[in-house]
């Protein structure tokens, strides 16, 4: 340690001034509307100068899967599951009124007519604003989704400790 002693109050004030507020979002849902809300909050927070981390788990992983790519799970059970559980930004169903795809298609059409960004555009914007993506390794394995089928921008593959280490430092923590 150096001889110079810092006034603890001054040091803290400096630290707080330089430290951006943090936001974490756990995205468990793979529903289009919920994922959309998550990305809107994430991009909004980033635009407000906050540091944002999105932690994707379970169905939420579908939001960061590449479109139309099937998982390469080894055992047949997980392969089957991966086949049934389609992923990709454009494949997410609405939480209500999905109607075997018809309702979701109608919603997408209305969004397009109103020039509202879709999931893929929002996700791109989030990355552009420096939002960090973390994929949960446990649920990746459970759901038969392999790393190589996710988008390349995933920052980390981690578990609950990584999430909690981030969350305890954050001022806003959301579970979607």
């Amino acid at each position, binding site marked *: 340690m150096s001889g110079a002693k810092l006034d603890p109050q001054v040091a803290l004030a400096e630290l707080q001034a330089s430290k951006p507020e943090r936001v974490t979002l756990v995205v468990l849902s793979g529903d289009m509307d919920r994922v959309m809300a998550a990305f*809107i909050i994430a991009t*909004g927070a*980033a*635009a*407000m*100068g906050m540091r944002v981390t999105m932690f994707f788990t379970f169905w939420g992983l579908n939001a960061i899967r590449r479109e139309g790519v099937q998982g390469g799970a080894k055992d047949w059970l997980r392969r089957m599951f991966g086949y049934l559980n389609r992923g990709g930004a454009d494949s997410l169903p609405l939480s209500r009124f999905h109607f075997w795809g018809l309702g979701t298609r109608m919603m997408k059409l209305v969004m397009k007519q*109103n020039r509202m960004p879709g999931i893929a555009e929002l996700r791109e*914007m989030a990355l552009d*604003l420096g939002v960090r993506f973390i994929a949960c390794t446990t649920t990746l394995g459970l759901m038969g989704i392999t790393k190589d089928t996710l988008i390349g921008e995933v920052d980390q593959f981690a578990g609950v400790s990584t999430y909690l280490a981030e969350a305890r430092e954050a001022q806003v923590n959301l579970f979607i």
Partner: protein
Amino acid sequence: MAIPSDVKLNTLGLFCPMPIIKTSKKIKELTVGQVLEVVSDDEGIKKDMPAWCETTGHEFVGLAEESNGGLIHYKAYVRKAK
């Protein structure tokens, strides 16, 4: 109400969070003290822009409403503070 501005940003037709995202990008191009005028037809901007300013530390100068063929255009003015 006319507030003088240095730079204009058109976000007409764009929904939340686009006006705020575009504002956060545009403000970087200004020098400290300059005023940015953000035009939007999303009513949410009335509350969102002051909230954005409070969080980011920029100064919220004011808001003007203009009727434009039945559509209301909101003009939010932000002074770059840092």
